[in-house]
Each structure stands twice: as structure tokens, then as C-alpha cells.
């Protein structure tokens, strides 16, 4: 039975913010595709993205119908399912761009590492919700979350997909800091983290080391990512205050931007719409994040609060890494911009996240 109060409590404002970002995303995607692809591919890719967004909204609404607290009970099953998919992808996955990330099921191609992000957030929220204390988490209670995070991390590093693996650790770390750890735990984690770096370094393969060194210093690779960053900076900077106008971006049109419809899409926005366009997008993201935090705050349930925060962390890190990367503030990592970059897995995962947030928001007044 569906409580009428739930519909009254539906968070329309949050939905409008998401919808607005999707609209901006589609406009920019159209520019990027027009420049980078053949005419036939433009409409086909654009339509695909629309379909993913449409189905994303449906998934989001469907997800609001089942109480999010059910997730607490199902968390182990969801986690095991996603980890299983990660193992399968390592064995049977399709190779593209040198790594195994995709799993083909019929006509669907899914990227299990994307689903794993949500699964890990749910499992961590579940684990921490019973162990949170005023002073913070102690060592013993940290073992389970650590194991939960490291299993998918190792599986994804092995694909290899360093961007997603790093994102996973950032999300897990953010949640852990959010629920607070004991001071001594914090410092010893910090120190073991630092001392683990050289150890991890030796475990990496040569080409992985090479990629990380280039991440840290794009100048090492002036013909690859170093060049991409320069072109991206020229694109962004040349947009100036008001931009060159819709479909008038020259950097974009000349195909000088790499991956212009996925990882580098924000450069297209900046070139064609200028700082004004960028400001609108940043403000919308900002509202989205704070709105989400408000949902976490208003939730009367520890699991829900941590879950909501985890999703906010996931969205935040994607925004921060992606925009930081295209501006040369961050190493070049393949992390898409939520709801703007082209890509079905990314759109769907984020929509699932927003669905959970809406779900928590609707049930803020019901408590156990």
C-alpha cells in the first residue's frame, strides 16, 4: 500500500534541478557530437543518450516506490551480485581501449564497475550505521568496511580502470571520514596510507606506472595527455565571458579536443557558452549537492543519512575530478561528468543514485 504522505512529500525541487542539468547536458552533447562525429552518428548517439536519460528517470521514479530501508536488508546480496559481475567481466569481458570493462548481455552492454559504486555505498552505509559512535569508529570496526572497499578496488584495478578504482576509494574514504573515526585511527590510517604507496608502486605493471607518472605530470607526455590539456585549456579560455555561441566553438569544431563528447565535454560548454554558461552549470551542481546534504540531514535514520551522503560524495568527486582534469588541475583520468558526459552506464548509475536520494527525501518523516 502506498502512503499518500509519500506523494505529498515528493521532492519536486530536487527533480527539477536534475532535469535542468540533463537539459544543459543534451545541448552541450549536441555541440560536441556535431563537431566530432559524422552526421548519421550524431543523431544516433544523441538519441541513445536521450533514451538513457529517459529510462534513467523511469528507474529513478521506480526506485522511490520501495522503502530505501529495504536496501539495508538486501545490501549483502546486492554487493555479492556486483562483485560477482566484476569477476565475470575480468574473465569474459569485452576489451576496449586496452582494458576489460564491459559485459555484453544480449544487446545490453553494462559496466559492472559503475554498479559497484552504488553497491559499495549501500554496504558501507549499512556497516557504519550500526557502528557509529560519538567519538568515532575504532580499528576493529573499520575492518569490515576496509575489506568491503578493497575487494572491488582490486578487481577494478585489474581491468585496469584506474579512474573508477580511484573514485571508489575516494567515495569509501569520504564516507569513513563523514561518520568520523577516532583520532588515533585517523592518524594511523593516514600514515599506513602513505607508507603503502611505495608498496603498491612495486605491484604495478610498467605501463600502469607510466600512466600514473603521466597523471601526475602531463608534461611527461606532451604528445598525448599533455597536448590534450593544452587544447582543452585553449578551448576553455577562448570561450571568455560569454562564449563563442552555440555550435560556434572552433576548438571543438576542429576536433582538437580528445573525447569531446565524454571526458572533455565541459571544455565544449566553456568554449561555446563562456564563463556564464559554466557558472550556470556549477551553480546547478552546487544546489544539487547541498540539496542532497539537506536530505541526509533531515533523514531520521542513520543508514539513510550515510547512504545519502555516500551518493553526494560520488557525484561530488566525479564533478571535481572531471572539471579539474580538463582545466589542468588534475591528472587526466577517465571520469565522466554526471548527466552531461555521453555514456549509458554513467547516466544510469547517477540516476539510480538520485532515485535513492529522492526515496530518502520522501520518507524523512517516517521513522522506526
Amino acid at each position, binding site marked *: 500500500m502506498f502512503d499518500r504522505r509519500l506523494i505529498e512529500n515528493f521532492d519536486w525541487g530536487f527533480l527539477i534541478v536534475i532535469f535542468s542539468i540533463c537539459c544543459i547536458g543534451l545541448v552541450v552533447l549536441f555541440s560536441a557530437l556535431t563537431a566530432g562525429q559524422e552526421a548519421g552518428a550524431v543523431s544516433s548517439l544523441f538519441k541513445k543518450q536521450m533514451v538513457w536519460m529517459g529510462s534513467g528517470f523511469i528507474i529513478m521514479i521506480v526506485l522511490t516506490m520501495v522503502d530505501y530501508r529495504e536496501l539495508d536488508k538486501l545490501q549483502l546480496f546486492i554487493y555479492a551480485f556486483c562483485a560477482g559481475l566484476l569477476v565475470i567481466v575480468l574473465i569474459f569481458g569485452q576489451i576496449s581501449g586496452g582494458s576489460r570493462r564491459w559485459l555484453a548481455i544480449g544487446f545490453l552492454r553494462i559496466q559492472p564497475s559503475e554498479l559497484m559504486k552504488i553497491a559499495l555505498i549501500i554496504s558501507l552505509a549499512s556497516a557504519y550505521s550500526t557502528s557509529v*559512535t560519538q567519538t568515532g569508529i575504532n580499528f576493529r570496526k573499520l575492518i569490515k568496511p576496509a575489506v568491503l572497499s578493497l575487494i572491488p578496488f582490486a578487481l577494478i584495478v585489474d581491468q585496469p580502470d584506474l579512474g573508477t578504482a580511484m573514485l571508489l576509494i575516494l567515495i569509501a574514504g569520504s564516507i569513513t571520514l563523514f561518520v568520523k573515526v577516532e583520532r588515533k585511527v585517523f592518524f594511523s590510517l593516514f600514515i599506513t596510507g602513505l607508507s603503502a604507496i611505495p608498496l603498491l608502486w612495486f605491484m604495478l605493471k610498467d605501463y600502469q606506472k607510466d600512466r600514473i607518472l603521466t597523471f601526475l605530470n602531463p608534461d611527461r607526455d606532451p604528445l598525448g595527455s599533455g597536448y590534450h590539456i593544452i587544447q582543452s585549456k*585553449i578551448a576553455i579560455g577562448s570561450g571568455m565571458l560569454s562564449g563563442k555561441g552555440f555550435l560556434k566553438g572552433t576548438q571543438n569544431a576542429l576536433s582538437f579536443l580528445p573525447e569531446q563528447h565524454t571526458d572533455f565535454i565541459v571544455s565544449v560548454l566553456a568554449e561555446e557558452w563562456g564563463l556564464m554558461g559554466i557558472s550556470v552549470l556549477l551553480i546547478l551542481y552546487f544546489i544539487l549537492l547541498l540539496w542532497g546534504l539537506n536530505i541526509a540531514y533531515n533523514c531520521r535514520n*542513520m543508514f539513510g543519512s550515510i547512504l545519502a551522503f555516500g551518493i553526494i560524495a560520488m557525484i561530488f568527486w566525479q564533478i571535481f575530478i572531471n572539471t579539474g582534469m580538463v582545466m589542468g588541475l588534475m591528472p587526466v583520468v577517465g571520469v565522466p561528468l554526471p548527466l552531461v558526459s555521453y555514456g549509458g552506464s554513467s547516466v544510469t548509475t547517477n540516476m539510480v543514485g538520485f532515485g535513492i536520494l529522492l526515496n530518502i527525501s520522501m520518507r524523512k518523516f517516517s521513522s522506526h
Partner: protein
Amino acid sequence: MTEFGKNPDREWLKQRIIGVSICIIFAFSVLFLRFTYLQIIKGEEFRLLSEKNAVRLTSIKAPRGLILDRDRKLLVDNRPSFNLKIMLEDAGNVKETVHKISQMIDIPFEELMKKISDAGQGAFYKPVTLQDDISRDHLAIVEAHKFDLPGVFIDIEPTRHYIYKKIASHLLGYLGEVNNDELLSGKYPNVKSGDSIGRYGVEKSFEPYLQGKRGGRQIEVDANGRTIKVLKTVEPITGLDLKLTIDLDLQQTAEKMLEDKHGAVVALDPNTGDVLVMASAPGFDQNDFVGGINSKKWKALMSDRGKPMTNKAIQGEYPPASTYKIITSIAALEEKEIDIHTTAFCPGFFRYGNRVYRCWNKNGHGNVSVIEAVTQSCDVFYYQAGDKVGVDTLAKYAMGCGLNKKTGVLLEDERKGLIPTSLWKKKRFNEAWHRGETLSIAIGQGYDLVTPMQMAVFIAAVGNGGTLYKPRIVSGIEGSQGNLIKEIPVEVTGKLPAGKKTLEIIQKGLLGVVENDRGTAKRIRLKHVKIAGKTGTAQVFSVKSGEKLKTEHLDFYLRDHAWFICYAPAENPVIAVSVLIEHGAHGSTAAAPIAGALIGQYINDPSAEGLEKNSSEDETQE
């Protein structure tokens, strides 16, 4: 402290949320300030750069590794090639510019325009090659008119250069442009479309070492596409050098003696398996392949009956003929069917069942022992020995001597020859083996097939006391300072299935071939160096019994193949040679002098000098 239970403490949660909000505000401020910096403060500058599309990438081709001989003499290096290119975006009036160019370099306007249209749409921002490797004269003209030719530039790239024309062409190989399938295969991660990769010989089998790695430049250009400044450079990494085991002087002598002949010469160091000479005739000029061979030359090479594109040293399969008698001797001695004293009477033929098998010497050899049989190559002795041993035991020994399998030389498409067994015949023809066939096999005719390389490895083993080596063509891979990067070790692949006593008997017989006055190759006897060897004449076309046809009356392609395999000095060999001359008629006249000349040169015996010329003299000896 207390646990919260299911519901969070409001005050605690508020404090956490405020902390997170501050972090988010801070992060967004950083992003916003960075956008402001790029778009407002540096905006003007970037706008200018974007309008000129001024930052470009150019690629720098890596020079391929060099190829040296065993004494570090340069065999293959790189020379600069001046490639004329055009950047359409900067060219202004493309037709006008191309028109001028076509007059300067004498290439039809239409041909140049076709190259531009072939390059397709995406080519507008990438240089299009108008003509690779233009001559110095054309280069001078183009350079002088540089300022009338907007967008046109000369790209200097290293190109392969084979220093000695037609020398060791099959061994060294050549390059060819990489094709799309190869690019997609992922086997060549550092190769881009338009690059060349090894297609034949060591150029192919050592491709990963020779290749090197492309570099590149980030450059800022002006409105005409001319470089204003180089922003960043990644130097190309030169490929590694190959040090071959080949002896250039000896190789040249072998090639010279093979001129106008069809055949192959292999010389090995019998103590390491190092290949001193690998020559196959007719050959081809590798420089024809640089920058793509034209179809006319390619067709001519492919339709030549002498098969210039086949490396006959490892791909030519021939009946071993009398050289195989060494193996029949080993088998008979080891199986104790004969010993050093066993003799056979040769009246010039051998009656077996209701057939008559002839000896090459119709007058007969009289009573011969195994040593005399090797020396005089008596067929009748081996009909009897072979019959006693039987085809399958004979095959077992032949395989033990390294036949019927590849020698393992690091070149593509080596052939393994064929040693028949009764089982093989059953499978192949579904027929039982006739004992009479064994008689043909025993003297190396019939189904037997071997390559000159296999025979070289085998005779080297006979000379060195029984060790079979894998022929080594590259001894080391070196950096450009001559520093050894990787050593290719000497490899033993097996032992001859012959005891010390057996080998001593064989060696004595082989020495007689040259040193005994009844030996079949006594004509190549040298003053200071003793050669031990074996001649062979492989039938291509069998002349009906009774009809005695003179060789010169036979069509060239029906004439017999000539073999000579040997090692020297006989007492302590330092070189083993295997020579096969297709349709050369007699081993003693066509093949043996080449081996003699090589040995004379290698061990420095001047008495070998006459051998090169008198190989045409006719002699009816085997």
C-alpha cells in the same frame, strides 16, 4: 562512548553536514576561480591561440636499428629521405600551390591532386604527403621557392638503406608499409599508419628490436603554418642494432660465384652453428622495396622461374642424392649390418628381384669397403647396405641427424623437408612400402627431401664430432653505443646418432672424397687445407635406361641438381659449407668449387683462387 542506535544524534549530524558543506563550497570556489582565471584573465590570449589553431603536434620517426656483420661492418643503415608534404589548412589556394609544385618536381598536377583527395576529409588539419623521397635537385628548387608555396614543407625522415646491392637479400629481408589489419591486430603498438615494418628476413623476425619508438613535437605555428617555436619535444628512441654472424667478405664471394646460377650456399662455424654465409640465387635488390616496390618490378620478381623471392637455403627442398650416403653409412655401421672391413663387389649395377639398379659408374668400382664407398660414392654398396638396414631404421637415423624437422633458424617459413617411412607412405598414398624403394632412398633419391641449411648443420656435426647446433644468424642485439642489450646464445639441438668409431670411419671416407685420387671431388684439393666432403647429383628427370643423354642436350630445368657438403680443415674444422646448384648437373663440377673457394678464402689458402673459374670444365664423375 554511547552508540547512537538507529537514529542519528541531531547535533552530531549537523556538525558533520556543516563540515561537508564547507568542503564543497571550498572545492567549488577553486573550480570557479580556475575557470575565471582561464576565461577572463587569460581569455584574450587563448582566444587568439584558438583562432590561429596555433598549437600542433608533429611526429618524429624513429631511425631503425642498424644491421652489422660479424666484424661490425655495416650492412644496413638509414639515410635521410626528403618527403614533400602540404598542410592544406595553410595552403591558401591549394590548386595554385600544387600547380607550382607539379612543375618544380615534374609530377603531373592530376597525380598530386589525387593524393590530396585520397587523403580524405580529415586530412585538412594533417599534413598530406605529395611525394616521398624527392631528389636533391628537386629539393633545392622547392627550398628556393619556399615563400611562394604556403603550407608546403619538407619533412626529413630516416629511410632504410641497404648498402650492398643484392647481397644477402634473403637473409636481411626488406620493409613494407604496415596494413590496416596489422595495425588493428595490436601486435605493433608503436606503429602508425604509413610506417614501414619488416616483411622478410631478419628485418621481419627481429622487428620488435629494430623498430624503435616514435617521438614528436608540440609546436606553435604562424598563420602560414610555419613553426614559430617548439614548445615541447619528445625525442624518438632509435631501434636496436643487430649483430649478425655473417662474414660479409665470404658472403660476397658466395654471391659472386652464384651469379647467373640458381641455388643456395650456406656456411657455418661448426663449433657454434654461427651462419657465416647464407646466399640464395637469384636474389633481389632490397632498395627496390624502400618506399614501396612498383607493381612492374614486383610482377617480374613473382613470375621469374628462378624464384628470386624464395630463400633457397631454408625454403628450397631437394633430394639429398649421394650426400645422403653418409646417413646410410651411419645407420648401417651403428646397426652393425656392416663394419669397417665389410666389402661389396660393384660390377656397375645391382640386380634386385627382376630389376637392375645402376651404379653411376657403369664400369663398376670392384670390391669396395665403406670408406671407399663414401670416397667413390659407389651406389651398389649402398643398395646393399640400405636393403639390410630397411627404410624405417634408415629414417630413424636420418631424423636423428636433424632431417625432417626445421633447423630452427630465426627466419620465417623455414621448410622441413621430408624423410619417408613405411607408415608415411601408407598414410600418404595408402600403399605398402616396396623394398626396392629402399634402394633409391639409400642413395638419397626417391621421396627424400632436404634443405641446404639442414645439410650444412648435419655436415658441421659430422666434422665437429657429432654436435648438432641451431644455426645462429644474429649473435647479439646492441644499443647504439655498441652496448650489448641481449645476447642470442649458441644452442645445441642434439647429437648425431653415431658413436666415435662410426664417425671416424665416415670422416676418413669424406676426406678421401677430396684427398684420394679416386675421390669424386679431388679437383678442389687445396695446398694447405684438407677438405672433407661429399658430392651429390640429384635427379630431376630420369633418363630412360640405355639412352645416354648428354647434359647439355637436356632442357635447363630438367638437368640434375648438384650438391656439395663439406667441412675444413678436416682434422679440426672451422667452417662447414653446403652448396646446392639447381640444374648444375654434377656436384663435383658445379657445387664443389664454390665450397672450395669459400674455404680457401676463409682459411686463407691462395691455391683456391683458380677454383672460381674452372667450374665449367666437364667431367663425368658423380
